[in-house]
């Protein structure tokens, strides 16, 4: 099972750079999610890997084969890959069995009886046994999606590409299918690239996430790493919600934000550098106003501006004392504060991430 | 140029003579009176089967001689003309003044239907009998004969067909063109003449040679000249003469067995909306000058005794003429068209 190596890929549409010097390594058997907002280049990257587009510069290697470069591109039919499209792309004039069997026609050494056998097995795996003779038009969205998955897996591709395959499903089904896809990945172990704009999906499904912004990979890492230790403002804001405070580094583990001082997760940043501090709403605990806080913990005071009850949590906007900063805070349902109440806020320094790309 | 001068000159002489003599006044004055009436009417509508350039030429000459009276030329095949006239009548449209076709049978029909004005153009007394209707409703404006013609570049003179019977030879298969009696009066006359001579079997055999079918009797000359088909089995002799004069490689054969004579009558319709213009025009076309023009530049024969013909073609008196009775033509018209289609396909 080979891995994918994307090196310095560039592709422009007119003046617009869709992909700019993009590099990414995908280990064999790994499922990497390409995550980012629309226009960030994730679909373009996927299509470059599939061979539908030719790069202006850069290379794409699968194992020890160079499949794409600006000089030549191995056509899609020879790349030994499979792809699942957002619209599923099931052929309406073929039955489910014919759809699934299609790729096997082009594999040498697979006879007719082999084909039938493998198709039935795969349909069982995706829980569509017995649907061989149906037509795509007769299936529900979820069933169509599973046919698309079966069609891609049955050819035992070296690389599997998924282009937002769940966006057309309703919310409940989407959640269910996330786990299903993860399960299939663990069962088959195919090197996979998964494009999505939904971070929850990326976190559930992938081994690693590559966050894309404007044609580049700005951070890769596990869900934990990307969420808990974002490296740029963009990543911090895109993955989950966050509060971003602009300030100046006072020491390697302290940041001055206006009149407030925050203890932050330590990094080697020279004092005087302009930085931003990222604090997740969930990481803030609300207490009674405290005059003498425990050492090593960021303790602040503020007033509740707004409290929204969301059913399984409460969403606050809290104005900090001695500052014009308003923090978003999310707490479990327990003590509910009301607008106008004074509160104390406690934040673990490890949850205050210092970001040095100020002015992003 | 010469013509106009002679016209004006003739009129001047007539005017002076009439003023001086007085007895001849009536004719001149009658003409002038009619001219005024014709000018008031403004135009004469002419349905004619005379070849288009020839028809347009006659019309222009008339308009030059009589400014203020226009000629509206509508040219199409003889059979189309009668269809058109009858269709218009049925729809109560009275559009046409003068009808001139090459199918004498039409005029027998028109006369029987009381659709013609009785009018004798000036100067036709000297015309042969075949050019005059005994009741005075229609007169032969021009005449031609049907001939064989061939392309001299494609066929050496020695091998060219000489007689109507020669055309039946299988060696001419795929090399001949004929016009259609369903369109052309010249051709329907021709067919009847040969049927009377040889019977319908002649055409049945001729059809075996897979002829190309065109519509107008004018068309075969173009076909032969271009070499599309090297031999024409019929067609108005005047058209071949004209095209030969223009320098095309066409030669005409006048079979010794006889050439079908086609006299093309003309008449004024009883419902003509511009009767005075019509009469003026008719007189004009029968005048010696115009009849001479038809003989000179158009290669036609006429009934006018004073017309001189070009020396490079035979005179009517030199040829053996096959004539056709107009009444028979009218009676058997349907049969002619049907059997022709039966043998030739369309």
């Amino acid at each position, binding site marked *: 099972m080979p891995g994918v190596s994307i090196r310095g890929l560039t592709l422009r*549409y007119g003046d617009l750079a869709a992909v700019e010097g993009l590099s990414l390594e995908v280990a064999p058997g790994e499922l990497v999610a390409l995550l980012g907002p629309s226009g960030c280049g994730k679909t373009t990257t996927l299509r470059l890997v*599939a061979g*539908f587009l030719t790069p202006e510069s850069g290379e794409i290697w699968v194992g020890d084969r160079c499949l794409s470069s600006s000089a030549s591109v191995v*056509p*899609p*039919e*020879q790349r030994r*890959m*499979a792809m699942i*499209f957002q*619209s599923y*792309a099931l*052929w*309406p*004039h073929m039955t489910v069995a014919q759809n699934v069997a*299609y*790729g096997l*026609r*082009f*594999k040498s050494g697979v006879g007719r009886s082999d084909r039938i056998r493998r198709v039935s097995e795969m349909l069982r795996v995706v829980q569509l046994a017995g649907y061989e003779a149906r037509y795509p038009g007769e299936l529900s969205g979820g069933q169509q999606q599973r046919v698309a998955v079966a069609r891609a897996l049955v*050819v035992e591709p070296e690389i599997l590409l998924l*282009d937002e395959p769940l966006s057309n499903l309703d919310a409940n089904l989407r959640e269910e299918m996330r786990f299903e896809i993860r399960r299939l990945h663990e069962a088959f172990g195919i090197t996979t690239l998964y494009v999505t704009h939904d971070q929850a999906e990326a976190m559930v499904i992938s081994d690693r996430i590559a966050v894309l912004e404007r044609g580049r990979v700005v951070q890769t890492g596990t869900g934990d790493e990307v969420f808990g230790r974002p490296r740029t403002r963009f990543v911090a804001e895109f993955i989950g919600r966050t509060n971003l405070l602009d300030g100046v580094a006072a020491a390697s583990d302290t940041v001055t934000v206006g009149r407030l001082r925050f203890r932050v997760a330590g990094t080697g940043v020279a004092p005087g550098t302009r930085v931003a501090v990222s604090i997740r709403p969930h990481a803030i605990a609300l207490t009674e106003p405290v005059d003498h806080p425990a050492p090593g913990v960021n303790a602040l005071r503020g007033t509740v501006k707004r409290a929204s009850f969301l059913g399984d949590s409460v969403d606050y906007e809290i104005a900090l004392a001695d500052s014009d900063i308003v923090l978003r805070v999310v707490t479990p349902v327990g003590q509910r504060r009301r607008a106008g109440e004074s509160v104390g806020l406690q934040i673990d320094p490890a949850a205050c991430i210092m970001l040095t790309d100020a002015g992003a | 140029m010469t013509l106009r001068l002679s016209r004006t000159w003739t009129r001047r002489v007539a005017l002076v003579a009439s003023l001086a003599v007085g007895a001849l006044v009536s004719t001149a004055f009658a003409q002038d009176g009619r001219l005024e009436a014709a000018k008031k009417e403004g135009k004469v509508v002419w349905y004619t089967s005379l070849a*288009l*350039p020839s028809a*347009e030429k006659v*019309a222009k000459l008339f308009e030059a001689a009589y400014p203020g009276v226009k000629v509206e*030329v*509508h*040219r*199409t095949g003889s059979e*189309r003309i*009668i*269809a*058109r006239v009858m*269709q*218009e009548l*049925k*729809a109560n*449209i009275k*559009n*046409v003044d003068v009808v001139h076709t090459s199918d004498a049978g039409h005029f027998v029909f028109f006369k029987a239907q009381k659709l013609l004005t009785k009018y004798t153009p000036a100067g036709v007394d000297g015309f042969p009998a075949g050019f005059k209707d005994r009741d005075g409703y229609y007169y032969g404006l021009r005449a031609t004969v049907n001939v064989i013609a061939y392309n001299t570049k494609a066929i050496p003179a020695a091998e060219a067909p000489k007689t109507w019977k020669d055309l039946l030879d299988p060696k001419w298969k795929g090399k001949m063109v004929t016009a259609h009696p*369903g*369109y052309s009066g010249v051709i329907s006359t021709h067919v009847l003449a040969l049927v009377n001579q040889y019977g319908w079997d002649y055409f049945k055999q001729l059809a075996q040679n897979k002829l*190309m*079918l*065109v*519509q*107008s009797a004018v*068309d075969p000359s*173009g*076909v032969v*000249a*271009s*070499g*599309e088909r090297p031999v024409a089995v019929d067609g108005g002799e005047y058209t071949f003469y004209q095209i030969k004069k223009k320098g*095309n490689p066409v030669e005409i054969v006048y079979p010794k067995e006889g050439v079908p004579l086609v006299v093309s009558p003309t008449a004024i319709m009883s419902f003509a909306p511009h009767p005075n213009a019509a009469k003026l025009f008719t007189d004009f076309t029968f005048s010696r000058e115009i009849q001479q023009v038809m003989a000179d530049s158009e290669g036609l024969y006429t009934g006018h005794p004073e017309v001189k013909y070009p020396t490079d073609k035979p005179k009517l008196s030199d040829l053996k003429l096959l004539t056709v009775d107009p009444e028979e033509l009218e009676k058997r018209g*349907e049969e002619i068209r049907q059997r022709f289609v039966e043998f*030739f*396909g*369309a």
Partner: protein
Amino acid sequence: MRLGARALDRSAVVWVGAALALVVLMALPLGWLVALSVSGEQGATLAHYRAVLGDLALRKAVWNTIVLAFWVGLGSVAVGAPLAWLTARTDVPGRGVIRTLVLASFVTPPFLGAFAWVMLAGPNAGLLNKLWRGATGSEDALLNIFSMPGLIFVVTTYTFPYVYIMIANTLALIASDLEEAAAILGAGRFAVALTVTLPMVLPALVSGFILAVLQALALFGSPAILSLPAGFHTITTQIWTFFHFPPKIEMAAAFSIPLLLATALLLLVQKRILGRRGYAAIGGKGGQRRTIALGRWRWPAFGACLVVMACAIFLPYGILAKAALSRAWAQPLTWDNLTLANFTFTFFEYGATRDAIVNTLELGVATATVGAGLVALLAYITSRRLVLGHRLVGFLALAPVVIPGVVLAVALFIAYTRPPLLLYGTLAILFIAYLTKEMPVGYAQSDATFRGIPPELEDAGRILGAGRLRILRDVTAPLARSGIIAAWCFIFIGVIRELSASIILFTPTTKVMSVVIFDLKEEGQFGAIAVLGLVMLALTFVTVAVVQAALGRDVLGVRE
């Protein structure tokens, strides 16, 4: 939608108006047609039908027509579909040029093409045959255009654009990812074309075949020019001969009815096939569609396209130009042979020409203006569902496409050569014929126009207080303007090239250009025909340019 009393009033007015129009345009003439086909001396009789069906010559004409239509259908698909695939899906060079030339073939009147091909492939004088004989020294001709294969060839050359348009539009509708999915699973470019693309355009192929067949059934000019000299008839030429003297209008009527029924049946079948929308999936993500690289087949494919275009455009237009400028069209183009005499003859000496051009332009403008207005009104009413049974109105607006031109002419002739409406001999009868015949194409364009203007745009204005008429003026009309102009132009182009109805309804004072060209053909006046033909083409192309400017996109309707 609840209909109150006011809505019913509105409906009533529209209905009465539409009903009246449709009666005058269609019901009355067709009624007379049927009535006359069964009328005899002593009342109703089937004698005419018996005569028509029993006559050997007429049966031959029917058989010839079937043969012609079938092969034209096949030929048009065989040429149009691959051409569409090449320009829409592959990297064949000169795609834009090819599409423009297909458009030019689409608007060239077939009878003009037939006439040009006589000059090219007449067995003895035809230019191509002459070249062949010169090159090989052979006695025989390479091509004989005066034959059934010749007729099929010429008709196919000007009918394949219908199939091309249908296939090209369908190809554009197929989601690109369907083909990409096949490619990534291992299918090479031709395997994709055969296993995915072809089955999905199959309904369009069948539909295109039927469309081509319908065109071939109704043609008059090409058979009259090519088959009559070869000695065989088609249904349309046969109907025309029934109008010769002595006229057999009842036979013409009886012969027309089966043609009408056949056309109606074919259209029904075609609608059924196209109605299966399941195969058209609008979508496709990821920007541009991937073109198939033809590799070493690139230039041969381009060559094949050029051959088709040579047959349709280069050769015929070239020979027309040559004939227009030559004294003798069959002779080589030397300085001696060059002349402008044909132009002077056509415009200054031949009286019928000027009148015909004037008539054609008058009728073209009148029909297009009235027609565009009428179809705009009808299309607006049906797309906004303003009256009860709006679907029926839409159906009736498209109904005339069922009637072949010749049949329509026969029906109009019968209806309007008798009281109360004696329109024969006037331009009015031609106007009615053209309006009826071109209404469907104008309606189709207007319908598409209004469907492209979402009703929400008008609703938004009305909510803010503007009345329906005000909205029409401020919102709808500006947005619909280019589409209405396009409809106008389509009708105009259709009128100036119309022959099959005009040839029956014209009188010497109401000739139009196509009739004059036909007349001149019967006289063998090739030079004048070429000049008039070029004028007609020039008029057409100017109008096409106007459409393209108005619509801002290719008039063939295929989006880039």
